[in-house]
């Protein structure tokens, strides 16, 4: 938790970067009209709208990009931390003093190196079914690395490496769409493998993005606030593209 501010600052920094690189003027008239709910009134206007279907006077929105790939990095979230390193919230090395002599000697005989935690890298693929709905898969990876050394000789005795790998089916619901900005929520369900030297486990896992924001067109940056295997606050970038005809 001591480094939480780093994540917040980095997320804000990433958001500013994305905003700064997204200041392009909307030049595509078709997109502009779609965003502003423009209704044509003359023959000239109708001729320009070659890809928009009309039902009465209201335009039906079409799927803009059919495929979406993204890579993100998430700050630690409660659920992912509990599974990866359940003792994180309740355990402090400085306060731990074993009671029995064998445990105490073993504890004093060892020095522990810094704990490095990488969490959480995620990679997603979604297929846009409707303009407001996409279905796809989400995968995530998180790890903790820490080595233990002999306090007298300094020789490394062992390393504790713990990994979480998750794969989920993910549904994304877009509730605000403009040319540059999209806001959405998503929910995913799947499995998480907890891997460590002493053994592992396979658990059901979920991931929710309560609020998600993308800025950009084909290439874009995103920011999400959520909970689950992908962490709490996530940032990243993605690429949208259509199928080859």
């Amino acid at each position, binding site marked *: 938790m001591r480094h939480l501010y780093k994540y917040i600052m*980095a997320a804000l920094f990433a958001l500013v970067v994305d905003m700064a690189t997204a200041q392009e003027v909307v030049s595509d008239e078709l997109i502009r009209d779609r965003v502003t709910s423009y209704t044509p009134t003359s023959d000239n206007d109708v001729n320009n709208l070659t890809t928009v279907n009309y039902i009465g006077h209201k335009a039906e929105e079409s799927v803009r990009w059919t495929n979406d790939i993204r890579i993100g990095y998430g700050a630690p979230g409660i659920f992912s931390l509990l599974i990866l390193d359940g003792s994180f919230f309740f355990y402090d090395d400085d306060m731990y003093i074993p009671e029995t*002599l064998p445990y105490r000697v073993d*504890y004093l005989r060892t020095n522990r190196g810094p*704990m490095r935690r990488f969490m959480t890298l995620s990679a997603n693929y979604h297929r846009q079914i409707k303009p407001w709905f996409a279905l796809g898969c989400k995968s995530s990876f998180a790890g903790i690395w820490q080595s233990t050394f002999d*306090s007298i000789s300094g020789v490394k005795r062992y390393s504790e490496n713990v990994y979480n790998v998750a794969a989920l089916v993910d549904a994304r619901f877009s509730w605000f769409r403009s040319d540059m900005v999209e806001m959405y929520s998503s929910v995913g369900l799947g499995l998480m493998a907890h891997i460590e030297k002493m053994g592992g486990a396979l658990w059901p896992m979920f991931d929710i993005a309560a609020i998600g924001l993308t800025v950009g067109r084909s290439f874009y940056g995103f920011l999400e606030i959520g909970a689950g295997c992908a962490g709490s606050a996530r940032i990243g970038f993605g690429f949208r593209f259509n199928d080859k005809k």
Partner: protein
Amino acid sequence: MKRYIIWIIATISLATSCVVNDGYEHEPIAIGEAIAARGIGEIADYTHTFITIATIDEYLATDDEELREQLRTNYIGANSKIEQEGNNIIVSTTYYGQKYTLHNITTDGKALRDGGVWQSDNLRLFTTSNAITMVVTEPNNTNYTADSASLNFENIEFDIEQGYSFNVSGSLVIGYGKGNNLNCEICKKLSFMDKRFNSGIIELRYIDEGNGYDDLVTVEYLDWSKIGISYLQYYKVVNNYII
């Protein structure tokens, strides 16, 4: 392209900021201190067991009811009761109306001070020349090294105000697991006076075959009358050989 580079840099910055714990380090001297503290505690425990049994012997040897009452309340316990039936001595206490047996001693019919042999669970006490020897024998166990001790208490003197004073010599073994034990050897007789050790040297060897530990620690008791602190603190680790 520039924006992708910025994004990649931002992501890598996040990833490399993930050292969340600086770890910890221990000085080797702390190992010796831990071993010394446990060895001193074990010797003190056995010594106080001896004092309780010696007090029972004192209690049964006197007809002075006032002294008996002082011995019972000050050294055994306010709610304690000492009963002798033939060769059995039962020391019990009452706690919230429930009776608990503290000691169940079988004797050979003689007082300890008169050369009697007393037995209580895994303890055996008997007189040798001018000392009382207390032998502790735990049943052998295949899973751990059995506790054992042989301590000699010499020059025993008792004062109702100051309590017992005596010298202690001998050794004891505390078993933790198979091939994992703490051997305590009293190298220079411990002087026990006014409810605490006053001087003496003990050597402690901690062995843990499983982890490959074999540590030798020498502890010297300091003159508590000059320091005036609790009995578990007035010692110093003289040598700390981490093998």
